[in-house]
Each structure stands twice: as structure tokens, then as C-alpha cells.
């Protein structure tokens, strides 16, 4: 794997906010480039797609976009790289990935497997409410 050298990226302190921002974009690109591997090893093809995972990673980064202290950004990047390494090394399991990164704000896994495309709208809305 060409992106397997994540343990090399230990954080020296960023001098300026611009340098920290640059490292955030580098992290995002590394994460995006390892997404095909993640999809393959956890068999996520019927649950999500690479573009959805990419959007999830971007929204996690955006949650911390208000931070201005470069040292805090370094700490967040350190945790982010650690998380990415755990995911790529398969130290996590499929249900962790689905629960943390796929089942998003809507609270339910969207049905994407071919076997579920024929089911009725009643069943699809069953978890939402009895009366829709």
C-alpha cells in the first residue's frame, strides 16, 4: 500500500496557521487515497460509496474548522492520523466503521444492496413511524 507510511507523520509543531492548514489538506488527501483500500477490506460496497465516505471525512474536518491555534490543530491532526491508521490497518471492525462513519445524521443505514431494492416503501419507512 503506497499510503501505509502513516506512522512516519509525527507532528512537529506548525509555526503558522497556514502551515497547519496545509497539513490538514495533506491529511485529507492521504485519507481520500486510502478510501478504496478501506472499502475493500471492510466490504462496504453495499452500504456506502467512496464519495459518501469522502464527504464524511470532509465534514469531520469541517467540525473543527473554527480552531485557530496551530498547536491545537496539530493535536487534532495527530488524533486524525491515528484514527486513519487504525482504520487502514484493520484494527477496527466493520460495525465500527458503519456506526461511526456511514450511519450519519439520518440515523439509519441507507439500503443500497440489490436485494433490498424490491421491498415496499412501508417497510422502508417502518423505523421512522407507523403512520407515514
Amino acid at each position, binding site marked *: 500500500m503506497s499510503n501505509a507510511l502513516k506512522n512516519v507523520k509525527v507532528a512537529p509543531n506548525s509555526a503558522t496557521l497556514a502551515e497547519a492548514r496545509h497539513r490538514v*489538506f495533506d491529511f*485529507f488527501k492521504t485519507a481520500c487515497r486510502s478510501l*478504496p483500500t478501506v472499502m475493500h477490506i471492510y466490504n462496504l460496497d453495499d452500504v456506502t460509496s*467512496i464519495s459518501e465516505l469522502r464527504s464524511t471525512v470532509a465534514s469531520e474536518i469541517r467540525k473543527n474548522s473554527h480552531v485557530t491555534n496551530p498547536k491545537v490543530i496539530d493535536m487534532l491532526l495527530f488524533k486524525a492520523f491515528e484514527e486513519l491508521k487504525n482504520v487502514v490497518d484493520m484494527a477496527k471492525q466493520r460495525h465500527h466503521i458503519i456506526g461511526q462513519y456511514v450511519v450519519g445524521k439520518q440515523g439509519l443505514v441507507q439500503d443500497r444492496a440489490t436485494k433490498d431494492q424490491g421491498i415496499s416503501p412501508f417497510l422502508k419507512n417502518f423505523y421512522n413511524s407507523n403512520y407515514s
Partner: protein
Amino acid sequence: MALRAAILRHVRLPLQTAPKLHHNQPHPCLASFRFMSSHDDHITKEQVTDRVLAVIRDYPKVDPSKVTPNVHFEKDLGLDSLDTVEIVMALEEEFKLEIPDKEAVRIDSCNLAIEYISNHPMAS
């Protein structure tokens, strides 16, 4: 590859000067001499444009009706820099490329993306 090497080792052609040709219209019997070459097999600019526009339209934060080949990601579509990086990564995935950082920073708008990808020899 082994078949090609085997053929090249064993087939002998008589020595003769090749006739002058206009390079856009290969002589019909000489075209087969390079049937294993991928020299002319580049993706066309219309295909690049269509696929780039499709990728940008599929991006959830983008309004598909505003996407034109000249659109600027931050000024016209109202995206921020993280969204721009995400679109560039989506294009990398679509065309199976790996764009180095110095070039990726420059890609700010749709026509720059189309131009970069059309000029890249490995775009597929």
C-alpha cells in the same frame, strides 16, 4: 508481452524504406504493424469535459444547474477550500490519476481541471 517478444524475436522483415505517409491517415496495411501500441489511444477532450462535469454535478453541495465548463469552484459555486480539495480528489478517483500537491493547489475552476486532465498522459 511474451507473445510479442516471441514474435519480435522470430519474425524477420525485409529491409525497405517505409513510404512517406500523412501521419493522420495510416496506410491500411501498415496500420497493423503497430496494433499493440497505445500511442494514439488518448482520451478525447469531450469525454474529459463530460466526465468532469458529471463528477461536479454529483457533488452534493453543488447546484447542478449552475455547472458549466467555465465555472469557478469558490466564486461561482460558493464552495470553500476544503470542498475544492474534495472535488479534486473526486476527479483523481474518476480518472485514476494522482495529482501532485503543486498542481492540485492551482486547480481552482472547472476549465483548469479539464485542461490539466486532458494534458495528463495517464488519464483514463
